[in-house]
């Protein structure tokens, strides 16, 4: 009998889970309260990065994901979601920053990331400000268009037999042994399920609670700036080395460390700030002007370029800044796949493969549950089964 799986959430992570699970022959239903990719996925920049990750469980998942993005591109056509292996260039602003960056890169190399020291950054990016002491080039860094990627993955899942339906998940139905037997929607329907995947992103905490398996997922606000379309001026994803510090930080205040990159449409994206302000949607002009100033320092030509729009989103993060991926021991059948913070686009294919491996009970497409135990929800639970 095929395993019936309900995936909650049709963001890039849910779509990737559906894609892999359906490819593996499971009976998959995806349900979202809105259309595909309309959540945080539509707010992300689409960076698929290895460069910003420290050796550890997240980098392990990111390396697998980078390979799987290429596989997805091969299967669905890289143009369907604007997959571009453009590479990243991290630049230091002073000699101390350069030393720290090179030390960081050396550790990444030891963990299997390709990193190349660059002394003359303007050879790679001619429009960078003069006088920057150097940087590191990461050829594996890539880019996708997140909503197109989610839509393409979901379409492919449907071709493999999956179903997509709109509906808000209100709770789980469990059998006498406490195992999940279905999912209840807000409209009162019950979708039969042997397993439920919590891929609700920033709302994963709430969905987990509704399923009887709460996990702590919190919002971290970010603004992204988009310029008018230009002829190609920026070739790589370019960012200052401060970004590395910003990602790893857990300060409550505002952090901005800008990443500058061109898109296929010709616009330049400048992102992104990080603020812990709950789900506050108000505009923060101080963030916008700060990002603009940082971007202009990196690329002085941007001073004359128009900011055309700005948008913001809420990254889903867990207290330890690692995603939570794997079965929840408290409610058999519930599998979490959320909390990817600022890396959920990049990490989506590997997350989908890892969830599928957990469901199958064996490795799938290079994802071996035994190699990713650091992401299991168990890390938040005391032996008694309650959140710590």
């Amino acid at each position: 009998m095929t395993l019936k799986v309900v995936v909650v959430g049709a963001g890039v992570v849910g779509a990737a889970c559906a894609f892999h699970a359906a490819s593996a022959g499971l009976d998959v239903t995806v349900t979202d309260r809105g259309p595909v990719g309309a959540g945080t996925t539509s707010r992300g920049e689409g960076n698929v990065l290895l460069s910003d990750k420290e050796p550890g469980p997240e980098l392990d998942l990111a390396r697998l994901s980078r390979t799987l993005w290429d596989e997805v591109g091969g299967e669905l056509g890289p143009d369907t979601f604007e997959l571009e292996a453009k590479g990243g260039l991290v630049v230091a602003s002073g000699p101390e920053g350069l030393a720290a960056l090179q030390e960081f890169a050396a550790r990444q190399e030891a963990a299997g990331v390709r990193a190349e020291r660059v002394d003359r950054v303007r050879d790679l990016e001619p429009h960078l400000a003069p006088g920057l002491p150097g940087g590191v080039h990461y050829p594996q860094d890539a880019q996708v268009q997140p909503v197109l990627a989610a839509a393409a993955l979901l379409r492919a899942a449907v071709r493999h037999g999956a179903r997509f339906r709109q509906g808000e998940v209100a709770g789980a139905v469990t059998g006498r042994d406490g195992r999940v037997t279905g999912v209840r929607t807000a409209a009162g329907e019950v979708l039969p399920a042997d397993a439920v995947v919590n891929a609700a992103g920033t709302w994963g905490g709430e969905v987990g609670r509704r399923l009887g398996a709460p996990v702590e997922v919190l919002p971290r606000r970010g603004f992204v700036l988009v310029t008018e379309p230009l002829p190609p001026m920026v070739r790589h994803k370019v960012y200052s080395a401060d970004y590395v510090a910003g990602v790893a930080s857990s300060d409550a205040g505002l952090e901005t460390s800008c990443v500058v990159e061109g898109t296929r449409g010709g616009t330049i994206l400048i992102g992104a700030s990080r603020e812990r302000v709950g789900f506050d949607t108000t505009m923060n002009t101080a963030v916008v002007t700060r990002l603009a100033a940082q971007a202009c320092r990196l690329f002085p030509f941007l001073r004359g370029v128009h900011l055309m729009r700005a948008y913001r989103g809420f990254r889903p993060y867990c207290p330890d800044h690692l995603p939570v991926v794997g079965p929840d021991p408290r409610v058999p059948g519930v599998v979490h796949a959320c909390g990817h913070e600022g890396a959920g686009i990049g990490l989506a294919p590997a997350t989908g493969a890892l969830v599928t491996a957990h469901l199958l009970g064996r490795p799938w497409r290079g994802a071996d549950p035994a190699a990713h135990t650091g992401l299991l929800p168990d890390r938040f639970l005391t032996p008694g089964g309650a959140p710590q």
Partner: protein
Amino acid sequence: MSEPADLVVVGAGPAGMAAAATALAGGVRVVLLDSQAALGGQYWRHPPEHARALVATDDLHHGLRRYRALCQALAAHRTTGRLDLRLGHHAWSVVREDDGFAVHAVDRREAPRETALVLRAPRLLVATGAYDRQLPFPGWDVPGVLTVGGLQALLKGGGVAAGSRVALGGTGPFLLPVAAGLAARGVEVVAVCEAAHPRAWLRHPGPLLRNPGKWAEGAGYAAALLRHRVPVRPRTAIVAAAGGARVTSVRIASLAPDGSPRPGTERRVEVDAVGVGWGFAPQLDLLVPLGCALTDSADGNAVVAVDGGQRTTVPGVYAAGETCGVGGAALAVNEGRLAARSILADLGAGPLPVNGRPAAPRSAVTRQRAFARAMALAHPLPPAWPSWLTDETVVCRCEEVSAGAIRTARAEGAHDHRQVKQLTRAGMGWCQGRMCGPAVHCLTARGRAYEPAERLVATPVTLGALADLDETPPAPPAPPVPPVPPASTADGETDKECP
């Protein structure tokens, strides 16, 4: 202005001018800003001050007496220092702060140089008007095909007629003044294609009868058009335009009741310019990010929701004029005054000096709103307009997204313009969906009111100007000041209804 302002008014069209004048008459300090180089907005658009002597536009205007009176009142308050008038200033964002609002603007008086600055006050009035609602059709992107508002702006703002043989199309009474203005400048207006049936007005006779001024206005234009032999053709539409470097012809068709072209009625007419207008979409860019609630208006647009005193749902934020729904200049003026009275009351500024005349802007607003509603219902978008489009017709001109691509996105489950944008890039370009948003909405979400996408940046700003703002240290917060007592003179601003 050395002392802090009590009120910032964004937009110096009929609504913003009237509001500022009334508020100043009530004794408060006002900052009035507008992106244009001259006061007046869309209705009273004028060439910049330095060019006025060269370009005569007075004969194109109506209600100029009122315009001049408002200009004079504002000028007097500039002299006293209570009005800080900032023309050539475009607001790109407004945010709430602890004790009021910060209007982020760019000063473009020395364009292309831009300087970013922040204007602060405890109260905010948004009177940013509306812009032309457009519907795509094959050839609408050929040079020389303009909006009627664009044609009018060229005429009133620069004395320029866009062509010598012009066809106008769309729906709504605003086609008529534009036709009359062009004809007055010697332009041959070959046809005014009005999609609606004139009988549609008869379904709502009440508001029509209660607004005799509007009758007179309409009759005036009709007489002018008759004099210039401009043919007004009801139940027709411009369904295609053709040309290379410049438009050379249009195709005009009679419409069936659902708005689809009647087979066999299409005919080709040679032109060198075209103006099309399907009513207006309110300019809500500053209001939506502030969290102001919207409500549906009769013309298919969402507009900002206001109470009987023009207060939005966000305390301290007021709206007047076309942001609250399209209804003409007289209504805009009255709403501006009404808003100013609420602001004065809410600031505790005491009663307005009355010029011996009873003040009744509220009842005028109610009556004129009813008229606007009847007007909107009599001039709906033809439901079957999408049948004019081929799959190749470009809908989003900035990103070159075709009707076919949008139909595909819809078939894949996209059910509003935001979702279509994510999948096709329609609305992601320079105009940020201001041009194609209503059309994309109609193609995907027929039946619901059009709510524009949230735009956190209301006008493109150079990153350099923003960067400089980041570098400047913030000014210390201004201490709150008690409201200034009302002035004893009434500065010529009366509360009589605008004709």
